[in-house]
């Protein structure tokens, strides 16, 4: 059984990717735990308590606490990201209420886009209005970046997190890299 544990080395989909321009910094986010959480309105309070944050109920909003962020994706759907110790599946299970939690930690990769040209870089492929008035800090949306689906989260006035399925992540990175170049002009 010498081979046990031999497979526990992670190969990240965006390993070695870096880029950007004088106006935009692009980097691959470190690995994080993620669940796709589905539940009805009547069970949100118990799930919120179990997860340690208030699941957002308004479209295009997110809630964050203690390294966890819950992004509203639909009336009964959230993407919950844990950048800390993890344990999302167990936490959801401990709620004792009806829900569906599916581990999608490895399904997504994330690209961090920051700098004064961040929104312009994303607007190279994303048609959303990213002005602070319409898309403030904490706003999130499942949307489209050129030809791929992304989940976009604004983490600061000039910083975004782009969640994308792993096999689309090099495309998304490439597009953002071109957007970053253009945003610096």
């Amino acid at each position, binding site marked *: 059984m010498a081979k*046990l544990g031999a*497979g526990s080395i992670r*190969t990240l989909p965006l390993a070695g990717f870096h880029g950007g321009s004088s106006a935009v910094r692009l980097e691959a986010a470190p690995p994080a735990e993620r669940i796709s959480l589905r539940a009805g309105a009547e069970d949100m309070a118990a799930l919120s308590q179990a997860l340690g944050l208030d699941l957002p109920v308004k479209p295009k909003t997110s809630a964050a606490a203690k390294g966890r962020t819950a992004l509203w994706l639909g009336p*009964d759907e959230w993407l919950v990201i844990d950048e800390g110790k993890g344990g999302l599946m167990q936490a959801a299970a401990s709620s004792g209420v009806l829900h569906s939690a599916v*581990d999608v930690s490895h399904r997504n990769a994330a690209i961090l886009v920051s700098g004064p040209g961040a929104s312009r870089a994303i607007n*190279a492929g994303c048609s959303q209005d990213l002005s602070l008035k319409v898309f403030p800090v904490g706003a999130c949306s499942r949307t489209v970046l050129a030809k791929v689906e992304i989940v976009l989260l604004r983490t600061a006035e000039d910083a975004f997190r782009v969640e994308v399925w792993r096999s689309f992540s090099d495309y998304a990175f490439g597009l953002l890299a*071109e957007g970053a170049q*253009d945003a*610096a002009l």
Partner: protein
Amino acid sequence: MSGSSNNLGAFRIKGAGRHTPARTARFTFDGKTYTAMEGDTVASALLAHGVHLVGRSFKYHRPRGILSAGAEEPNALIDVSRDAARRQPNVRATVQEVFDGAKISSQNRWPSLKFDVGAFNDLLSPFFAAGFYYKTFMWPKEAWTRVYEPFIRRAAGLGVAPKEEDPDHYANRYAHCDVLIAGAGVAGLTAALSAAATGASVILVDEQAEVGGALHFDASTKIDGRNGYDWAQAAAAKLKAMPNVTVLTRTTVFGYYNHGFLGLAERVTDHLARPGKSLPRERLWQVRAKRVVLATGSIERHMVFSNNDRPGIMLASAARTFLNHHGVAVGRNVGVYTAHDSAYEAAFDLKRAGVSIAAIVDCRAEPGEAVLAEARSLGIDVLTGHSVTDTFGRLRISSMTVVRNGGSNARKIKVDALIVSAGWTPSVHLFSQSRGKLRFDEKGQRFLPDIYAQDCVSVGGCNGTDDLAELIDEAIAAGGGSVALAGENRFDWTGGMIGAAEGAGPDTVVKAFIDFQHDVTAKDIRLAVREGMHSIEHIKRFTTNGMASDQGKLSNMHGLAIAAEVLDRPIPQVGLTTFRAPYTPVTYGTLINHSRGDLFDPARKTPMHALEAAEGAEFEDVGNWKRAWYFPRRGEDMHAAVNRECRTVREVAGVFDASTLGKIEVVGPDAAQFLNLIYTNAWDTLKPGKCRYGIMTREDGFIYDDGVVGRLAEDRFHVTTTTGGAPRVLHHMEDYLQTEFPHLKVWLTSTTEQWAVIAVQGPKAREIVQPFVEGVDISNEAFPHMSVAECTVTGVPARLFRVSFTGELGFEINVPADYGPAVWKAIWERAEAMGACLYGTETMHVLRAEKGYIIVGQDTDGTVTPDDAGLGWAVSKKKTDFVGIRGLKRPDLVRDGRKQLVGLLTNKPSDVLEEGAQIVADPNQPKPMTMLGHVTSAYWSENCGRSIAIALVAGGRARIGQTLYVPMKDRTIAVEVTDMVFFDKEGGRING
């Protein structure tokens, strides 16, 4: 480089124009070098050197010059290049700015611009009348391919497209704003100042290099006491400094779509001699505007008279732009032919610059009093109630024939240029694109915006607002803010006409051009009407009037008026053709922008892609996925590699990347009930830890997708779909869940990309996998075929499936995707040592065909029921409902003789059938033969030592044992109908 006025061109007027003489640029035109000033257009630079002849017309190859000074130019189309790959045909010389080193060529001439063989067409023009193609090329039919089409293709299109790949790059930007203003003349700038003052976000767009619009030529208008052009630049500078305003010049609003969505093309580098590498050549802007202000102005029309197309004849406002903006006189002895006061101002400016005005010929009896008085005081000869009825000069106008209206005493007046104006056409293109409705303004003989379809307002020239004070008030109101602004112009313009002028009327046969680019004359329009075209849409298509790349910016109104005259109907009843995007041509590069090379389309790669590539894999495209196809070893072709892989899997084992299979996690207390409704077979009977093969049909009963489903817990299923079917199966399920079964407590999540899937198949599969697995006993007894368990593999949490798509003992190891490469390496290292191989999709296809396993989408085509596919056992007889249950009972779906999947064996074992080949019972029957079906899968099977095939055959299963025929081009292949299992008919190996 500096230049004296001399080498900048003999027609430069000292002190005129807005360019800096010290800043020059050299370019070539048809190989000859010229010096221009920075800011010159190719048109103004050539005119400065006295060059008027710049091209040949499309149909008759008539010599043509520069007609306008802007985007409406129909004539002066040139080829601009920086190098072989950076070459653009059909560029308007009036728009292209000169840059140092530009190589400009004329088009549509051979062997040279001055002597063009194609001009022979002009002599044949009686044969090339409107509708010529339609009438002449009708028959004989055979002549189409040999004579007519090659002729038309050679004649069609101006310019030559470059063959090299475009080395430039292009960008895209989405933007939003409260107000988008199209056009930065007086009206647009004023509206922008007004809107910006309210704090609204504003995008102001203008197609020219600088803002100013008509102020480029109109040197007499003053705004806020300043020269209009200078005011405009100051206003733009003020706007650019505001954080809520974006000013885009060299940018064309080319399309106005639904809900305030507009397409803009920004030309970033076309005017630069040495553009920075990082700069995109053009940038597409896709803007969503809450409100749109159209300030697109108006376009001057030419006069329609005999031989009105000679080089040297141009719009009066264009001559004024060349003089006042570029400092270039269009001639030394200039004639004026007009129906509108505005041409007088051009004459005044030229006269004051020292150019002699031969005469102002005004077809009206009573021009505006003010301009008439000014002309007299400047000593200009004005012939009112006169018309120009002909012109002379081969490559440039040399004289004009002038006649008193209705009179016969013609006289020739020598000129070296003739400037014309028939009045102004409001630019309602974008308004029309926005689906707004126009009305005909009888007094102004023009179409104006009437009913708006979107949140949009037109101001200034494009709204028919002629008075400057009114225009400013209108623009301020449109902006929604308040600005104090006063304007004054010297003359109020009157006049204008549409249609043919004196001497080009219905009783004449002269060539009086209305559409210069497509060589359409007034008499062509009349011919179209006589031939029965009574709608302007028909007339347009019959004559091709307005169908050139300028879209009839100059010709539409003239064509309409001439048609209305012949039809004896009022203009609004004849109608106006629809304006369509783009307003001016947009390059393909701009439209596709980032979508080229690696960004053309996402190439989806599995977590193990790099490892497979390192093992020498060839990849095939399956949807957007790159899948390992086969793994050739040194010296192997595809055939040899696939044969070896097929043999090795059945003799030892093979390792296969199955990560692309679609995966959906179905979770909730009603999960089994939901799957019961989606699939044809039953799921409530499946125990946790077990798998089942499932078929789903559409409502019509035909197979939609298939795959293995594992039950992980009472309330959790791991569903797999075909690679290509993953997205649509999830949508199909979600659609039914939300619309038909919303009462079920169940949720669906795509997990395709969560898991890397490593399939190990073959007699030694267990031996290979065994040492890595912890947490489950995978012996045949404890973990038989169609089992699933959550365990660890190489220490990584895994979902282990005992399944097989090869007919061999097999496992599919699902691990979180990031771990895929490390687990693959560990498995492959052991497998390789045991004599196993890596195999790809081609081997997978062969092995499954040997076992008669179907591939949905290859062996089925959307008209195949489970029973047709030999999978009737997978349709539950007990269930009272599932998607497709009613469809499957339709008489046509249960009748005898339906096409069914069967096996085919060629009489000659080495013959491999062609997929798609048709099957008949009697190869000697007369054509058209009765076709019984077609081959869906066909391979060489190394394991069977012969070819195998699967086919859809009418009444197929009843024909087992019969001989049928596959007629090919060169021979007929006899085949025996068999069942679909070619290897291990007993099926014992799967339970090994």
